[in-house]
């Protein structure tokens, strides 16, 4: 009888809210609604090799060095010569990436008028509780750069006839 009982699920954005509320180190977390469909948003967001250097000024280049289904390994080189290897889980609407010191995540779901997009970032370093304002600054800057992508603007959603 209980096979037909209603079950609750969490969409990717809700899952990211859970993660943001559960982590033991301070994170930047924000949500916005973009005026374009989910597929369009995710085509940009999931292009990690192109978007990470474009949105994060400290990343010079990023390269996927191994792919096994939704699990990837990504190597990022920084503008100051630093290198970081990321374990990545990437699937439609969800991306979680972790290096030794950095955590990044994105999630997206369709919403009336476009797509709800959530982003999370944080440093897994001792003493980062004091760096909250810096984290906010960096997160806001990355989000502004991401949303400035030509494919994510209102004009991209409704091209003139």
């Amino acid at each position, binding site marked *: *009888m*209980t096979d*037909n*009982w*209603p*079950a*609750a*699920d*969490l*969409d990717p954005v*809700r*899952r990211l*809210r*859970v*993660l943001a*509320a*559960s*982590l*033991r*180190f301070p994170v930047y977390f924000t949500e916005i609604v973009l005026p374009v469909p989910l597929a369009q948003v995710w085509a940009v967001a999931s292009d990690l090799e192109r978007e990470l250097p474009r949105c994060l000024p400290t990343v010079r280049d990023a390269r996927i060095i191994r792919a096994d289904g939704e699990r990837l390994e990504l190597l990022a080189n920084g503008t100051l010569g630093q290198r970081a290897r990321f*374990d990545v*889980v990437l699937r439609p609407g969800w991306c*979680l990436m*972790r290096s030794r010191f950095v*955590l990044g995540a994105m999630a997206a779901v369709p919403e009336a008028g476009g797509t709800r997009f959530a982003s999370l970032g944080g440093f*897994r370093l001792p003493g980062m509780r004091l760096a909250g304002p810096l984290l906010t600054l960096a997160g806001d800057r990355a989000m502004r750069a991401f949303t400035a992508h030509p494919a994510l603007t209102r004009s991209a959603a409704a091209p003139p006839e």
Partner: protein
Amino acid sequence: MTFSNRHEDLVLAAQRGDPMALGELMESLLPYVGRICGPIALQDGPDAAQEAMIKILRGIRTLDNPAALLGWVRVIAVREAIRVASASTNARTAPLDEPPAPGDPELAVDIADTLARLTPRHRAVLVLRDIEGLDEREASQILSVEPGTVRSRLFRARSSFRKAWNHD
């Protein structure tokens, strides 16, 4: 859902604060949490599941015995579902002795309709007894009520279902 070695590995890694393990543990537990929160919190099910998962992941460090994971998760999910559903204005239900609206041919819709006529606490008893298969004593411990209260809530909840099934 049964506890596996994979769960144990994930719990230990999550207790060390590994974000990937927290994410994987969430995905692994969500179907179970959703099956508990859905029937108790109904339209507030996603809110209840979200709150329950936050409590679970935040509290994972306090879980001494990883093998006790599912029982511990069940307690949190049931209590959060009752709390969220009771706090919601949508928790106002019709009296138990009122029969459900007739005639919907979809079984799932009938079930949701009948569940909606029960209070969250009655729905929790149904979930613990009929989905989780717990006995009265175990259900009473999770709900912090006397076994007799579980018995009477179960009787009222089941009779509401019987009325729904027999109603033409």
